[in-house]
């Protein structure tokens, strides 16, 4: 009795859930043969995505991004620092990615740490000169913290989306220099305090040039599955993340190992999928920003 025939016999009798747990790979391959996925998506389609700006009142800029069940909360806090002499009129951005134990039954620390370097690498998106206050004396340090609240696959995509959204929500507070040479926030009520010219005259937003968007795909045999769930990621191990910016330049093509090799055709296909996804995400982000402005 070969095991192959045994399992196929079983598959007709066994309950679907049991089959899914016992033979996860066969379960998914059966779906792939029919060009459908267990959650009824076609292979190249991403899950429903939403962005909400201003989720955290105590931060200067924040956003909550949801891709399917994967939830990321990003918040930016602005603090003041003394810039280094070599870049006297530039601010700085510090990014931390956190996976608190609430987000997943198996918190695998270190795994999504890849998010931080890629986002910080592309701070070409932000002109650091805009974060300057007093050349050589004071500049903004933007602390971006991303928390994963629910981990269900494609963590990087959700983290990047929430980070980008938080930056588009960020408003730099009005500040002025006080007598001790420290930078303090000017609150609106205390008008008489304005004898000193504010360094930063009005609440302003950062100009974002070429916003990056990403799409993670799972490669399995000849199939490319866009935006995998945690289950798909654990069953089929080869991940490929493409990051494109709004002018379709390649920001990152990240494939850390995995049993499936990426051939030229696969790369081209996944770049094409990312281009489509980029348009979707741009629309979602623009809607979130314009909703914000109406309020």
């Amino acid at each position, binding site marked *: 009795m070969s095991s192959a025939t045994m399992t196929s016999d079983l598959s007709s009798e066994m309950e679907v859930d049991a089959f899914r747990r016992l033979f996860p790979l066969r379960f998914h391959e059966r779906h792939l043969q029919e060009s459908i996925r267990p959650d009824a998506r076609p292979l190249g389609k991403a899950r429903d995505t939403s962005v909400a700006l201003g989720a*955290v*009142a*105590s931060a200067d800029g924040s956003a909550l991004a949801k891709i399917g069940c994967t939830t990321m909360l990003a918040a930016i806090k602005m603090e003041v620092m*003394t810039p280094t002499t070599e870049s006297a009129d530039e601010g700085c951005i510090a990014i*931390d990615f956190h996976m*608190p*134990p609430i987000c997943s039954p198996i918190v695998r620390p270190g795994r999504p740490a890849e998010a931080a370097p890629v986002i910080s690498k592309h701070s070409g998106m932000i002109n650091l000169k805009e974060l300057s206050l007093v050349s050589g004396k004071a500049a903004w340090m933007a602390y971006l913290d991303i928390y994963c609240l629910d981990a269900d696959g494609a963590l990087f995509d959700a983290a990047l989306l929430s980070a980008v959204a938080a930056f588009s929500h960020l408003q730099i507070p009005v500040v002025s220099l006080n007598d001790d040479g420290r930078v303090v926030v000017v609150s609106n009520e205390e008008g008489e305090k304005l004898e000193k010219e504010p360094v930063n005259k009005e609440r302003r937003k950062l100009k974002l040039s070429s916003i990056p968007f990403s799409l993670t795909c799972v490669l399995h045999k000849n199939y490319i599955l866009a935006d995998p769930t945690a289950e798909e990621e654990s069953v089929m191990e080869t991940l490929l993340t493409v990051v494109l910016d709004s002018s379709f330049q390649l920001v990152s093509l990240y494939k850390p190992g995995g049993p499936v090799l990426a051939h030229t055709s696969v790369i081209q296909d996944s770049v094409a999928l990312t281009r489509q996804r980029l348009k979707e995400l741009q629309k979602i982000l623009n809607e979130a920003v314009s909703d914000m402005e109406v309020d």
Partner: protein
Amino acid sequence: MAGKSGATPTTYSPSPTTQNKKRPPIFNDVDWVRPDGRGFHQCRPAFLRTGAVNSASGSAYAEFGNTKVIVSVFGPRESKKAMMYSDIGRLNCNVSYTTFATPVRGQGSDHKEFSSILHKALEGGIILDSFPKTTVDVFALVLESGGGDLPVVISCASLALADAGIMMYDLIASVSVSCLGKNLVIDPISEEESYQDGSLMITCMPSRNEVTQLTVTGEWSTPKIHEAMELCLDACSKLGKIMRSCLKEAASPVQE
């Protein structure tokens, strides 16, 4: 190159939180109004929702004013460390804050004290015999701290436990009261907490009329404590009803 966090320069927050704040108003004054305009014995509007985290066995989100908390429950599952055999289940609690939870950027580290208080508050309400040899993990993350964090965490945790199907004697509701001069204010916000003379927190199981935890800090007189306890117990039973209706809502089939 940006974002080099290698040697992080020292930074400070420009918000004037640490500087000379307005002197606390005279609380003896009966006309004094709370910063958010509530009455002294009025709680903040509570928003509760179960099933916030899909990958957890059970979870809940709570929002009381500006205090926002997520609690996830995992298990009952295999005990992590090589522990001794135990007839009853174990409860493992952890409370942490996000770095942006407080007005001044924090470290986002675990809150050891709150973790142990949460453990003690929940322990009495859970039927530990129902999951021998295994552990239930309760993880709380305070997304934003707006005062009265601990009672919110405890109530939210009991809701998450119920969502996970962990057997409990009753839901556990928790409310705190601050003593400001002659006044008692229920469910204080951060600003009120910062100049309180004393605080009292009760964690109880409203339907059984049993208290699982009572903490009193600061300066209290006996009659004041009595008054505050009455106030808290009353609020707990009301909160318990809200929690119950939240669970019922989640359990009832969605009407299209």
